[in-house]
């Protein structure tokens, strides 16, 4: 099979480059020479510990050996191929395609993701047309003005004579309605007009904020200087309101955990939220949000931050897509973020592995905290906060896996599955090749 061939071939090439004998490498990796021979000749599929051990012995990252052939990439390519039913794609040569022409494969994937993104935007626009009260009100104004003008002007141009008072009255009405129609049309155009080429008009307020933060990563970090950064002018007032709330919250976190001291203690405590919270005598959710503000360029680990409300809707997401957590589609409920909602106030620390990416573990810290005062008469509102920190895969394999969402997740026997995966179809195809 091409995937095994490519990985095995890479191992063999690297070994020969280093001048190692097969027996030496096998010994260092704790496997027999005959087994290594099978691997190098692509007759055994490897991953996890053996791949890790071989990579260590060859002084390369495990991902280097499997780079470009990760299962998730192959699955995504096949998924992209299946979406185009009118084009017959050589699915049996997907691995070869990805391995031999990684640039073209990346382009195909990027375009497939772009199509998916555009489809989501179309859906968002459709939803907006159907449910947006502001748009409905604008359209109602336009139709009302048009109705009035049509009806009134029909009377004026009709054959029957109309006395002068009525004529004057109807002329005035038409003038008023035409003014109203002009105003309604203008506001409708402004509402629908896209402000930028990134399709911002179709973003939800949350997406608009996150896109802005992604475009300007230092926007939130600027808060640590103690100054309120210049908040960019956002398109929708809803996004502006949400952005103000986000800035206020992060500013409040920074006030509780001032940057200099926090940065020092975070390093000292090896970025362990529980220890940091203990040191400062503060809540873990505050620490998780603060850790997310530390920058990689200052020598801190990369992180992602996800916040959801009690219904599981993501209310804030930063860098999530880099680790497989995205707003697109329906996220995997196995993320610790969602588990924390069923155990309020109990911090969770889970190592998870993203389905298909066996070269990286994700250390997740999550906690759900109440966001409304306790009351006998009102439901208790909660908020889940999760910080993701990627790590090299450890020798002790994590048992927890999360996926990209059921539709494109191939994990079999998953208790959280909501719908069949389209990749099952791919697997069936694979078995025929």
């Amino acid at each position, binding site marked *: 099979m091409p995937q095994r061939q490519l990985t095995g071939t890479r191992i063999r090439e690297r070994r020969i480059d280093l001048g190692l004998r097969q027996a030496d490498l096998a010994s260092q990796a704790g496997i027999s020479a005959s087994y290594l021979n099978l691997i190098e000749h692509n007759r055994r599929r490897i991953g996890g510990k053996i791949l890790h051990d071989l990579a260590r012995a060859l002084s390369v990252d495990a991902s280097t050996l499997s780079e470009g052939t990760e299962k998730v990439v192959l699955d995504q390519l096949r998924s992209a191929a299946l979406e185009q039913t009118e084009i017959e794609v050589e699915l049996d040569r997907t691995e070869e395609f990805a391995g031999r022409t990684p640039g073209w494969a990346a382009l195909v994937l990027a375009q497939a993701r772009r199509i998916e993104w555009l489809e989501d935007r179309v859906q968002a626009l459709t939803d907006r047309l159907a449910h947006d009260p502001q748009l409905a009100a604008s*359209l*109602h104004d336009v*139709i*009302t003005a*048009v*109705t*009035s003008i*049509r*009806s*009134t002007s*029909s*009377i004026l141009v009709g054959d*029957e004579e109309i006395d002068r008072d*009525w004529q004057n*009255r*109807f002329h005035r*009405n038409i003038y*008023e*309605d035409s003014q109203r129609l002009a105003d309604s049309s203008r506001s409708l155009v402004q509402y629908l007009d896209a402000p930028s080429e990134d399709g911002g008009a179709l973003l939800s307020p949350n997406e608009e904020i996150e896109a802005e933060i992604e475009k300007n990563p230092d926007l939130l970090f600027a808060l640590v200087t103690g100054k309120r950064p210049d908040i960019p002018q956002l398109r929708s007032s809803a996004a502006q309101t949400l952005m103000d709330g986000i800035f206020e919250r992060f500013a409040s976190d920074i006030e509780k955990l001032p940057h200099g001291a926090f940065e020092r203690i975070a390093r000292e405590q090896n970025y362990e939220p529980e220890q940091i919270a203990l040191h400062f005598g503060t809540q873990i959710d505050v620490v998780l949000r603060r850790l997310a503000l530390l920058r990689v360029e200052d020598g801190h680990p990369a992180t992602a931050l996800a916040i959801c409300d009690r219904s599981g809707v993501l209310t804030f997401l930063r860098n999530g897509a880099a680790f497989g957590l995205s707003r697109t589609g329906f996220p995997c409920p196995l993320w610790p973020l969602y588990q924390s909602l069923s155990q309020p106030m109990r911090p969770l620390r889970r190592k998870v592995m993203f389905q298909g990416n066996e070269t990286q573990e994700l250390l997740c810290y999550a906690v759900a905290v109440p966001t409304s005062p306790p009351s006998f008469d009102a439901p208790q509102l909660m908020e889940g906060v999760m910080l993701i920190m990627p790590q090299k895969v450890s020798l002790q394999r994590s048992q927890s896996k999360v996926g990209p969402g059921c539709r494109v997740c191939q994990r079999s026997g998953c208790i959280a599955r909501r719908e069949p995966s389209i990749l099952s179809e791919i697997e069936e195809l694979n078995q025929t090749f």
Partner: protein
Amino acid sequence: MAKRVLVIEDEPNITEAISFILSRDGWTVHTHSDGETANDRIKATPPDLIILDVMLPGKSGFDILRDLRSEEGISDLPVLMLTARGQARDRELAEKLGVTQFMTKPFSNAEVLESVRALARE
């Protein structure tokens, strides 16, 4: 004696245009612009026919129609419903509530006049 039509519509210029064409056609036209008190107005002086807008202040045309159809003595009054919302589900709801005829805006005067005449004959 001229037949009476009650126009329940909150847009004054549309009300004026409809009133004019119906008056010219021989109808006695009464108007009302508030949804909240519309059913009281109907009960106080039942017309021969009602032209009813959907989006009204205080109470929607759907609610007015629903209440009218359960009101003894006037429950079978013919109702021509006018709306800017021409979606299928609005039409279905109106029919479920017992509307006599459903018309979407922008309508033509001829359509309104023809419908009113037809409903009066029924």
